């Protein structure tokens, strides 16, 4: 796949404070790329430098072959941007708002079609202040699409939304993904990154500390999954510890917990062990490691701290 965004040694300084500290990554054409990290990690600053909204203190960014620093206006015409907590003019209805934004690109758009794409077509006469939080976010995605951009940037698109509105927005973003657009988003919800992103860069303290597919991050994170089950009679813990890929075993009354680095290998062996030890296993649960666990392992802190 072709590279559409190339970030090399990107630095942003505010006086003595370094907000982004020499990060590098590439975004491929058509993928959804997520920047995951806690508040203050430098996600938004990174995004706004790529969008040409913030000046660059060091390093270089190219987007679709154009230097963002030198050809800022051209790059801006190729991208669509949703800013964090974006807000729009009062006093224009949604259709007028989209027409106005289209004119900023020297374009004309079918505003109603765009509103239909974000399921706001019956709201076209409404003013922005009459919309709910989720509807506002959907509107700001529609506004970001007025120029049929090559890359769509979403800065924390679901922050502050209720779970239902969040899922609704995820469906919408997945729909945009399917049209072949490249999407770059920031989030501090690991679930969101897992659901939406093809690849994820984890940022912390102005640096990218890991970059992989969600699965790759989990696998190489070397964290393991928890297998939990009930047994009808006790069986020595050493038996469980000898099962393949088991890192740790513990039991409490008739509940056993195994920490496995690879449940696909552990589980068949565990079921084979039923006959060996004449024990019956029921209520089995597998809890997979999440990006939250990965982040915890990488930084020693939780994402929400």
């Amino acid at each position, binding site marked *: 796949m072709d590279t559409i965004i190339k970030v090399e040694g990107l630095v942003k300084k505010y006086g003595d404070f370094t907000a982004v500290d020499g990060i590098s990554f590439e975004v491929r054409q058509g993928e959804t790329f997520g920047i995951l990290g806690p508040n203050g990690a430098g996600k938004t600053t990174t995004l706004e430098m790529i969008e040409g*909204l913030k*000046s660059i203190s060091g390093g270089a960014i190219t987007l679709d072959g154009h230097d963002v620093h030198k050809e800022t*206006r051209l790059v801006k015409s190729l991208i669509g941007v949703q*800013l964090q907590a974006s*807000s729009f*003019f009062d*006093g224009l209805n949604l259709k*007028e708002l989209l027409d106005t934004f289209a*004119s*900023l690109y020297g374009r004309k758009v079918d505003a109603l079609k765009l509103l239909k794409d974000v399921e706001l077509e019956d709201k076209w006469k409404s003013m922005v202040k009459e919309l709910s939080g989720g509807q506002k976010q959907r509107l700001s995605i529609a506004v970001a699409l007025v120029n049929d951009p090559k890359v769509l940037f979403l800065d924390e698109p679901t922050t502050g939304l209720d779970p239902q509105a969040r899922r609704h927005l995820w469906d919408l973003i997945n729909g945009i993904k399917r049209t072949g657009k490249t999407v770059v988003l920031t989030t501090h919800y690991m679930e969101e990154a897992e659901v939406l992103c093809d690849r994820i860069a984890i940022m912390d303290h102005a640096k990218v500390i890991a970059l992989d597919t969600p699965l790759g991050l989990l696998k190489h994170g070397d964290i393991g999954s928890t297998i939990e089950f009930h047994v009808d009679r006790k069986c020595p813990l050493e038996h469980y510890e000898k099962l393949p890929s088991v890192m740790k075993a513990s039991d409490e009354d008739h509940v056993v917990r195994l920490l496995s680095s690879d449940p696909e290998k552990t589980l068949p062996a565990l079921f084979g062990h039923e006959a060996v030890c004449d024990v019956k296993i029921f209520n089995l649960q597998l809890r997979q490691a999440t990006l939250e666990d990965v982040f915890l392992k990488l930084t020693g802190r939780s994402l929400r701290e």
Partner: protein
Amino acid sequence: MSNTTFTLTASAFKMFVRNKQSLFFALFMPLMIMVIFGFIGFDKMSATKLGIVSPEPTPATQTFIDQFKNAPNISLSFGTEQEMRDALLRNDLAAVFVIPDNLIPTPSPSSAMPETQTVTVLENVGQLQQAKIAETIMSQILDKTTIAMVQAPQFFELKTEEVSVRSTKYIDFLIPGILGLSLMQMAVFGVAFVFADYKEKGILKRLLATPMKPFQFVSSQVITRLVIALAQSAILIAVAILLLHTHVYGSWFLIGLIAILGSVMFLGLGFAISGVANNVDSVPAIANVIVFPMMFLGGTFFPTDGMPNWLQSVVHYLPLQFLTHSLREVMANGASFVAVRYDLVWMGVWAVVLVGLAMFTFRFEEKKI
């Protein structure tokens, strides 16, 4: 005008018209002030009030007193000396004339010279100017009466010819003042609030994420405000003519030009204020510190001639002063372009200063660090 600027201007116009706050400042407030002040009728209030004490005047004295009733802009009240003195103390009267009942003797065949009669004037020191005018009128009438009585030939005659055919009523003074004031309010508040709001809500930043040039956006907003300034002037003047019967003697084109120049000046101030303000809430505080004193010192509601000299020399250079003065000269006196050139040049100077200040303080883009 490019398609982008045109669409932006059309949108800005819609937004302005739909914004109740800006409409209030641009139209309803000035209309309200105009109508209230117009109907109060300050001209009538300025009539000089005189008291006459003459309990039982002879018919000839009564005829003499009646002459006062015909004098313009004077209202008379009658009573005992004590009543009139009380009224004087209450500041209800400017002066009281105590006129002897037999001031003018009934003509009699005996040609003996009548005794000298005394008319006492009680002056209200608080309204000394009006009292002196009344006193002058009184002595004039007395002189004429004396001449008539002694049947002396009249050697001199004062012939009055009215040179100004235009009535200069208070309303004709007020309307240009209100117009100047509303142009200032619209330009300052219509821009300062809106742009501080755009800045605070991140709308300016969102606009910067598009390939638009900031200049296009600002000019669309300025064009909108200038069109509105012209519409506003036309509406206010039309209401003043139809409802308050004011007169406009000068050129409409010149009035439009002055309105535009004045607006440019105050738009600069509006942008400068939104540049300095950190958020929307600090806009009225900053704006009113500048606008409120100017409202009263800028020759809006009353002439500044009565102010102390040092204050006059300051207020003379206020931007609003040039705007109201030139509008008044053109509207009420039919002044020509050349006659108001001094005001126009000064407005130009202020426009350069304030727009320059706006460019210095108002930042569309991120500050480069």
